């Protein structure tokens, strides 16, 4: 990597200065304050707190449901993006706008709405309960909420990429003798993969930190439906700042590791495509 300015516009030094300042002030400063607070615990105490059984159960739920939720979004998000880009139908722009709604809605509103719909006596909760499927106040409900808030990420990252793929390319593949599956597998999928991965990573990261919508639908039963962010709030409630930041630090490191991994995967996918 070389340190040089590309392009004709001046001001590289200044803009990099801004970048460093901006990222430092807004991201690194609060994060280092957090780590500093967590480090006020001794190492053994820190370890004890972050590997507590209740914390482990919370990680499992948080990471598990965030993963499943964003995986669902990766699959169905691409589908939604595909439909929105490739087809023209009445009400398309409305559907397009609806996709962004989970972004705009205060998450508590989303949580309350989802709970109302899926609780025992809710519109969907009642028939589902008759089938023996409980959604609200179970891990399924948590996954549901996390899927809801993640929808826009995949759709919005895949959409512009899809728009750039000319339908001609598919036709060319067909003319050259590719089956429909081959066209998808060899032509379209590789082009969409990096964007899908980015969308997945964004949705995943967002879902991990989600608090507002989940606390309403999860029921917050210790060991069963308690998400990690709630555990942090619980610790704050007993003024255990250090314990709260210890759990937060674990979340931070884990999320950072996963985002890094996804970024690497994405680069690999892009290289494979090129």
């Amino acid at each position, binding site marked *: *990597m*070389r*340190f*040089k300015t590309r392009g004709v516009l001046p001001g590289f*030094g*200044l803009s*990099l*200065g*801004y970048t*460093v*300042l901006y990222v*430092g*002030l807004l991201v690194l400063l609060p994060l280092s304050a957090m780590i500093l607070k967590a480090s006020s615990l001794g190492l053994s105490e820190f370890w004890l707190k972050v590997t*507590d*059984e*209740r914390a482990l159960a919370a990680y499992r739920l948080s990471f598990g449901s965030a993963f499943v939720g964003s995986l669902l979004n990766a699959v169905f998000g691409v589908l939604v993006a595909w439909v929105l880009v490739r087809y023209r139908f009445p009400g398309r722009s409305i559907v397009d706008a609806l996709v962004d709604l989970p972004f705009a809605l205060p998450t508590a509103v989303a949580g*309350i709405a989802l*709970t*109302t719909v899926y*609780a*025992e*006596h*809710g519109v969907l909760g009642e028939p589902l309960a008759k089938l023996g499927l409980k959604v609200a*106040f179970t891990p399924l409900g948590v996954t549901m909420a996390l899927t809801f808030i993640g929808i826009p990420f995949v759709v*919005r*990252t895949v959409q*512009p*990429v899809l728009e750039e793929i000319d339908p001609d390319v598919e036709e060319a593949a067909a003319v050259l003798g590719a089956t429909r599956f081959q066209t998808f597998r060899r032509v379209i999928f590789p082009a969409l993969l*990096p*964007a899908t991965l*980015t969308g997945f990573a964004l949705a995943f990261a967002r879902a991990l930190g989600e608090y507002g919508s989940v*606390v*309403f639908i999860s*029921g*917050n*039963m*210790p*060991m069963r439906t308690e998400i990690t962010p*709630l555990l942090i*709030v*619980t*610790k*704050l*409630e*007993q*003024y*255990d700042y250090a*314990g709260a930041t210890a759990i937060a630090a674990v979340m931070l490191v884990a999320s950072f590791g996963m985002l890094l991994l996804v*970024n690497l995967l*994405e*680069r690999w996918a*892009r290289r494979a495509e090129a």
Partner: protein
Amino acid sequence: MNHRSSSSSSALPPGPRRAFGITLARGAALLVALSAGLGACNKKSEAAGAAPAGSNAAAVAAPSKVPVTLLNVSYDPTRELYQEFNTAFAKHWKDKAGQDVKVNQSHGGGGKQARAVLDGLEADVVTLALGYDVAILQDKGKLIPENWQSRLPQNSAPYTSTIVFVVRKGNPKKIKDWNDLTREGVQVITPSPKTSGGARWNYLAAWGYALKQPGGDEAKAREFVSKLYKNVPVLDSGARGATTTFVERKIGDVLITWENEAILSVHEFAKDNLELVVPSVSVLTEPPVTVVDKNVDKHGTREVAEAYLQFLYTPEGQAIVAKNYYRPRDAATLAKYKAQFPDVQLFTVDDLFGGWSKAQPTHFNDGGIFDQIYQPKK
């Protein structure tokens, strides 16, 4: 979204020292400029904040006084109470001191509110749900003196309440007392005592009931409370959330809640669907109030803030308290509103649990008894 961004985000590109140095220097210069700017803003706002203080002192001599503003940081269900009380106090203070006073209110979960004050929200007075949340202002923040609770009459709690039940119309599960809550097939709605102050009162009320039964001891109480919480299908994070679960979502057979909240929801919102049930024994909840010394001294609002809290104890203040379904301390006022406050055998947290400073770590902190109820045995 730019997908290429990820490839350049790996690290700061190492480059010629000079260029990098310049960049850093510029960054630093910006930082200095920015903080200077912030500092200036701070000073400005401080000056603005100090204005009423200084002018207040000056106003003692002058006939026309500058209006003063108080911030009362409180917990959730007191919203209506203090709305009415603030208006009454403003009138009282105008008559007495000839000064206009505006009281701003902040409401939220009690613990969150206490943390906000601890972290620098400049409350002149706090009126919170638990002594524990106020004590923390002394313990961790040194915002109030050690003797804060004895500065005002009755443990600094000008009004009290207790914990009661709300059941569905007709009481289909025949819930009369605490022991009915541990019956099989009864669903109990109460928030998590880990996150909700109100829920901690609920828990202690149940514990106290079990202790007060013939032959009741710690082990029996623990068993009783464990059994009760086995009947809790959802632990909402706050009291309002639990009420929503019970009233709106129609989950559960009984809601454990503050008396003032219960009367409010039964009498005013859901006359046809809900009924109030008062158990034989319950806990006397004493939500304490205090002036935040460090902040009133900074704002120069001590005199008016103290008068504000003392006004809560006057017959006029007590009447407002009773009208909002809190039990007044004043005997005459209580007698007047007797009809809405049925007799219950009440115990205090000091009586049975040795105060909040003991009850909190024993029962609610990490690893405490509430956690043990849920933690699988090793």
